[in-house]
């Protein structure tokens, strides 16, 4: 392919490889072990498929994943169908996966297909043998695992819609060895003891191996033989099991089975509600239209425009208004009289008189009081001024007398203490001749000293002859 001396661009070479390689591997069956499995938020899967010596990149786009029975994971041994694609931006090649099957699943699918063919040939899948699902089952039987999510899903739907359902669960294993036998037995038990009116057989989603019990012939047989109608709800919408095919009704999921079972009841309730409303509306409508007709009849000329009644009616009205007027006149006349009488009574009442006298008395007593008080005040004032004059006079006389006697006493006292008066009584005062001091003690003089003596009418000198102590 490579032409001597030709210089390629990278793109040219890459596209040349792509054009050469891709047609060679349009449909490849490839088996190997998954590694580096990545699930992108876009829903696409990317992984490598490897064996002991090599590996190849794989892209498994969302659009191709429809028939996938199980989410692949690292270590899974799978077989894929796809094509080789060269991816120029990265210059690599990869496998574009069209379908993926876990190892062993192929065998199961083959078995499933074979059983389906067999049952079809036996007439077990014929729509003509499907039993109708009772519209209002008295008791609903459920064959499933008591611990799975499916039973909760179903009960949620059933109890959410109705609060008066009678449900009986027959607990079974829904996967693993013995599961198919338990499921078949549970269906038989419901039939043998006539425990329920309808049976839901099912479980939640899982891999084809997980769901396998519902693909076993023994389960198909018990469903086929059941006298009680059976709704099958195995896995997800995309899973179709033998159980689904043989059952009288197939529900895509357990929740959907519960919906289907109660659909009719809900429908009936709605319908009855509707009937009730219709009934009311219809009767109301009729009554209304009859009423309208009646009103029109009443308005008919024969009733409305005949005068004889009207004249009588007018007369009656007149009489009534005359009556009304005369009564109201009489009433107002009586009322006037009554008001007058009331006024009279009021003015004549002793209470009124008393009130008047009381007022008069009050007035008189007040004016008397005032006169008395003014007169009294006048007298009081006069009297007060007289009294004051007298008091002042009395006080000054007393004061004068006091001063007079004080003065006399003072004079008498002064007389008493005048030393000259004492001298008149025979006393004399001695003075020292030398310093003129008054001699009060013997210690102030000595013998033979001269002293001066003062008497009432003069003085004289003397000599001290003897001192006695």
């Amino acid at each position, binding site marked *: 392919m490579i032409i001597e001396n030709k210089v390629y661009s990278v793109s040219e070479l890459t596209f040349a490889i792509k054009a050469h390689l891709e047609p060679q591997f349009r449909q490849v069956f490839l088996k190997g072990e998954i590694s580096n499995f990545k699930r992108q938020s876009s829903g696409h899967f990317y992984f490598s498929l490897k064996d002991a010596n090599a590996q190849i990149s794989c892209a498994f786009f969302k659009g191709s994943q429809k028939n996938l029975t199980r989410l692949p994971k690292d270590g899974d041994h799978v077989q894929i169908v796809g094509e080789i694609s060269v991816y120029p931006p990265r210059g690599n090649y990869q496998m574009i996966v069209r379908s993926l099957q876990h190892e062993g699943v192929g065998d199961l699918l083959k078995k499933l297909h074979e059983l389906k063919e067999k049952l079809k040939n036996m007439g077990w899948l014929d729509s003509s043998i499907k039993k109708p699902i009772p519209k209002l089952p008295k008791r609903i039987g459920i064959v499933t695992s008591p*611990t799975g999510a499916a039973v909760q899903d179903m009960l949620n739907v059933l109890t959410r819609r109705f609060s008066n*359902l009678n449900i009986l*669960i027959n607990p079974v294993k829904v996967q693993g060895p013995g599961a198919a036998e338990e499921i078949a037995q549970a269906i038989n038990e419901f039939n043998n003891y006539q425990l329920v009116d309808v049976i839901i057989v099912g479980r939640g989603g899982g891999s084809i191996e997980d769901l396998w019990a519902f693909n076993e012939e023994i389960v198909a047989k018990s469903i086929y033989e059941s006298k009680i109608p059976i709704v099958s709800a195995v896995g997800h919408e995309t899973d179709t099991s033998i159980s689904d095919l043989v059952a009288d009704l197939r529900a895509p999921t357990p929740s959907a089975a519960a919906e289907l079972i109660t659909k009719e009841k809900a429908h009936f309730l709605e*319908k009855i509600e509707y009937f009730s409303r219709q009934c009311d509306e219809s009767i109301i409508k009729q009554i209304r239209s009859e009423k309208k007709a009646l009103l029109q009849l009443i308005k008919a000329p024969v009733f409305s425009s005949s005068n004889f009644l009207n004249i009588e009616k007018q007369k009656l009205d007149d009489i009534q208004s005359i009556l009304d007027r005369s009564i109201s006149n009489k009433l107002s006349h009586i009322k006037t009289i009554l008001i007058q009488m009331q006024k009279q009574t009021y003015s004549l009442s002793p209470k009124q008189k008393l009130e008047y006298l009381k007022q008069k008395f009050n007035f008189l007593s007040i004016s008397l009081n005032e006169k008395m008080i003014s007169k009294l005040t006048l007298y009081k004032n006069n009297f007060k001024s007289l009294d004051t004059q007298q008091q002042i006079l009395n006080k000054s006389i007393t004061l004068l007398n006091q001063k007079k006697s004080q003065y006399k006493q003072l004079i008498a006292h002064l007389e008493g203490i005048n030393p000259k008066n004492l001298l008149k009584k025979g006393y004399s005062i001695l003075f020292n001749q030398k310093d003129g001091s008054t001699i009060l003690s013997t210690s102030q003089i000595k013998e033979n000293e001269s002293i001066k003596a003062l008497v009432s009418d003069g003085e004289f000198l003397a000599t001290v002859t003897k001192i006695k102590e």
Partner: protein
Amino acid sequence: MSENKLSFEQSFEKLETILEKMNSNEITLDESLNLFEQADALIKNCNQKLNAAEQKIEILIKNRNNEITLDQNQTPQTKPFLEKPNASLDEEIPF
């Protein structure tokens, strides 16, 4: 009227025909009122039948060999099913 003796389906059918008549505009008011009464009784009967039972969620009692157990009347024994047991995750693959 013996509406109570009719089955749900019979009551329902009768209701449908009554309603048809009532909506036909060809009957007298007396007839209408009579039909209304009948319909009312039928509606009550249907509602009663639809709402008659009480809610009952039970599970069959099984022995170790996974066989149902019978009481003295040869009737399988049941017990109330608890709404929220510990759901085991092993059989549910989130896919």
